[in-house]
């Protein structure tokens, strides 16, 4: 998290620290599911990506319940039973992060409390969540000033209108032909150094629903071109509600 602040305990009780292929983030859904980015499980640009999901589940380390990495480790990891990768995600397509969403089922349900609480999913009918300027908060244990953070940071970022995201991206396409699909949105600033960065992938972009008073996850930290050099790109959760609920409810 660049340009952010240190989170206090209980600010983002859904925040998970993942360690699958390096550091990542995730968000607690219910009492036994972790929502994260698919590329934290199957990174793009990695040649040897043939490990199967059972093996990855065995290796995955998930931590919950603290803002400090060291304390998180002391609390112990939460073993993973199963991993679900969205079928649209293409690990080999380095320029297209469409479908960058995954669910991890924990082996044992977690006991909720002040520092461990789930995030809500958005209401399908809420059309304002991704409107230009709708401010949300992103937390994460990712890179800050070139150093991987040892504590949870957060930053507030506005959602940006799709045209602006595309326009900015078009100006960068000569370097990287990245795809901005309808299953993504972008947020952040062009000039202000406030952004998410490596290590924050999988963490959720959350907004406060003023009507219900609940914090709702609207996006998943997915990709960007550098950090704090423009907008960041997030998986648009509202487009994946059926997939998410289909997996969670079936369980």
């Amino acid at each position: 998290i660049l340009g952010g602040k240190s989170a206090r305990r209980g600010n983002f009780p859904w925040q998970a620290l993942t360690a699958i292929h390096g550091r990542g983030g995730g968000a607690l859904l219910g009492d036994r599911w972790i929502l994260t980015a698919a590329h934290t499980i199957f990174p793009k640009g990695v040649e040897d990506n043939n490990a199967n999901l059972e093996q990855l589940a065995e290796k995955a380390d998930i931590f919950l319940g603290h803002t400090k990495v060291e304390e998180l480790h002391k609390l112990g990891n939460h073993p993973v039973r199963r991993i679900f990768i969205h079928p649209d995600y293409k690990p080999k397509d380095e320029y297209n992060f469409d479908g960058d969403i995954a669910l991890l089922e924990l082996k044992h349900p977690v006991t909720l409390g002040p520092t461990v609480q789930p995030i809500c999913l958005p209401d399908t009918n809420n059309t304002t969540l991704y409107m230009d300027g709708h401010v949300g908060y992103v937390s994460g244990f990712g890179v800050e000033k070139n150093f991987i953070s040892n504590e949870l940071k957060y930053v507030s970022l506005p959602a940006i209108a799709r045209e602006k995201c595309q326009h900015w991206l078009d100006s960068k396409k000569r370097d990287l032909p990245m795809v901005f699909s309808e299953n993504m949105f972008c947020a952040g600033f062009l000039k202000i150094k406030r952004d998410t960065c490596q290590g924050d992938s999988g963490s959720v972009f959350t907004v406060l629903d003023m009507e219900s008073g609940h914090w709702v996850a609207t996006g998943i930290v997915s990709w960007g071109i550098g950090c704090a050099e423009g907008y960041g790109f997030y998986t648009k959760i509202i487009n994946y509600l059926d997939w998410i609920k289909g997996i969670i409810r079936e369980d």
Partner: protein
Amino acid sequence: STPVPRKLFGEIRSPGYPKPYPNNNISTWDIHVPKGYVVKLTFRFFDLEPSESCFYDYVKINADKKNLGRYCGQLGLTIGNHPGRKEFVSKKNRMHLEFHSDFSNEDNGTVIPYRGFLAYYQAVDLDECDPSNAAEEDEKPECQHFCHNYVGGYFCSCRTGYQLQSDHHSCKVECSSELFTEASGYLSSPEYPQPYPEYLRCNYSIRLPKGLSVNLKFLEPFEIDDHQQVHCPYDQLKIQARGREIGEFCGKESPGSIETNSNEVDILFLTDESGFSRGWKIRYTSEKIRCPQPVPRDQFTIIRDLQPVYQFQDYLIVSCETGYNLMEGNQKLQSFTAVCQADGTWHKSMPRCEIVNCGNPTNLTNGAFSYINTPENNTYQSVITYRCNEPYYRIVTGTRGDRFTCSAEGTWVDQDGRVRIPVCLPVCGKPINPVTEVQR
């Protein structure tokens, strides 16, 4: 002298009959019929020299040491003593005939050929039971109770309760093993209501099928020798039921009615050498033996169709009020039936009713329950309510509510009677300590 063979009938003829009898002849005949008979003799033909008082020729008949007459003469003549059709009957089984003829049968120089006699005798049954048939006063048959005549003899018998002795005439009281097996009847001391005999050892046994109870009722008069200071020293009437003595009675006060509660009753009557008491008489009846009236062990026990009386083979069914279990010891019963047995006891003892206990309520994951009722227990109609660990969890009960009651079936159920407990679901997006921006 000719002994007549012991036959049942025969003829006696004068010497030479039917030819005239000789002079100077004395002939005797002893007629002897079997014992139990008497001799009946008649003359079929009689023609002897007539004379005054039968001085010359005659037939003399004796029986039972008595002279039955002296006969002579001819039929139709006034002189002499013609027997005619007379029947001569002895009182015993013998008769003696004597014929005597003198030296001549002349009448005015003419010899008259008197032909003599032909007599017929037969044995006639002696009715020994008729006292008038006794030959001598001391020869009466003397059956003590009953005499029964038959052809050629007789026998004695005795009244009920008496036994014919070895002399076949006397009767002695026999009451040492009187058995009664009918459902009801009468029994009394010998000779009742006349004074009872001495030296009695009477034993009257009433034996009825199992399950019946004998009831005794003493009738009037009731008299057994007694003593004012000492209890029944002379004669005793003892009543036992199943070997257990119910009582020993004497005096003039009737014991009244006695319910023995037994199907086997023995009545012993013992008398000494004297006394003039009239004895006793009992009417016994029987009814099905009764069992004790069932009594519930607690206020929750229900006896179905409670009867005023329970007798042998009756049964009762016991249940409990709603919310209570039938218990026999530590075992829960689905039902209970008890049968009144032949010995007047119930084949099972009354169970008790114990309040249903639902046990500890199911723990709610990420929640808890609390009791609404006091005292807090898990018995029938206790009520608990579930709640979740708020604010992190919220309770989901559907339409059933969060209250559960201990049912009569022993399970915790909601208001719809379902056992499924609520669920605590996570509350999302409500951090206790949300991020708060201050500077603007």
